[in-house]
């Protein structure tokens, strides 16, 4: 697996567009098709929203090339406990529907990272 890009940033709305653009760039670099590239943007955004709803204020995204694009989203600073939301169920189901492999890492009961792969 070849690591391509790592970003660390605040998971507020301000940088979401930047992250989506970076995601599109990585997908293009790896050569996955446009549909999957758009799906990947949706998944990265969704993963970050899950981390935010779980109380994280900053996150790290690591993009790697591995038979498609592998994405690792790690929650960094927790600003609070977060509020369980009905949208979490929808978000996880959406990720399951769009990605090839979804892996959720927890520290005890606490979500700490999401990993998925998208592309051929």
């Amino acid at each position, binding site marked *: 697996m070849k690591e391509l890009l790592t970003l660390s940033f605040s998971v507020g709305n301000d940088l979401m567009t930047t992250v989506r653009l970076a995601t599109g760039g990585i997908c293009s670099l790896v*050569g*996955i*098709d446009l*549909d999957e590239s*758009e*799906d990947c943007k*949706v998944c990265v*955004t*969704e993963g970050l929203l899950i981390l935010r709803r779980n109380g994280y204020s900053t996150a790290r995204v690591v993009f790697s090339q591995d038979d498609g694009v592998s994405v690792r989203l790690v929650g960094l600073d927790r600003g609070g406990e977060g509020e369980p939301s*009905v*949208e979490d*169920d*929808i978000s*996880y*189901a*959406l990720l*399951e*529907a*769009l990605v090839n492999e979804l892996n959720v890492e927890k520290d005890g009961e606490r979500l700490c990272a999401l990993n998925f792969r998208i592309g*051929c």
Partner: protein
Amino acid sequence: MDDRELFLRYRETGDVADRNKIVEKYLYVASVLAKKFVGRGVDYDDLFQVASLALIKGVERFDVDNEVKFSTFITPTITGEIKNYFRDRSRLVHLPRRVAELRVRIKRATDEILTETGTAPTAKQLAERLNVSEEEVIRAMEAGSVVSLDASASEGDEDMSFHEVLPAEENFFEKMETDDAVASAIGTLNETERKIVSYRFGQELSQTETARRMGVSQMYISRMERKILAKLKERLQSSMAE
């Protein structure tokens, strides 16, 4: 009344009012998901409509004894329908998945060979590297060359665009004939049978709802449906033979 009771009652009675209650309760899921796919060249309203129809279909398919929550069950269904919509409607040219995948592999192999040798690879080199035929490589590479219908179809002075010279859809007349044959076969059914065809295949109602509207049992509709389809098949086969 909780969701389970509402689903059970709908299964039992087929009452559209119950189905609508469920749909209204979960319409927010359709809205949430439609918003996530905005920005791909299809308006939110269209996506919401596709998502809402998927939601209605999902209500019909949901198994209440399944331990999955309805919102979790319906999300992949709606997502799948939205993706199908993108695939079918928003793209002018759709490459078969196998060809699209081969194009990605060709791009990678081209980069690799270029790095290794310093020169662009030939189709033969790519074919050997990817373990496919040379023809497949060439066809996959050509598949990406989209040409406008307004582009010139000839190099001469008498310019004609592709849309002027391309033939009409070749299945058009065949489809007309098929439509005629189906209409004629349906014409041989009696009134009750035609009503069932209209409810089941025109309005796409469930067998339960069709039975409710006609005041008969679902089993009766099921038996009649099999009989009608067998009858139509027989008529169509004999009209094809003619």
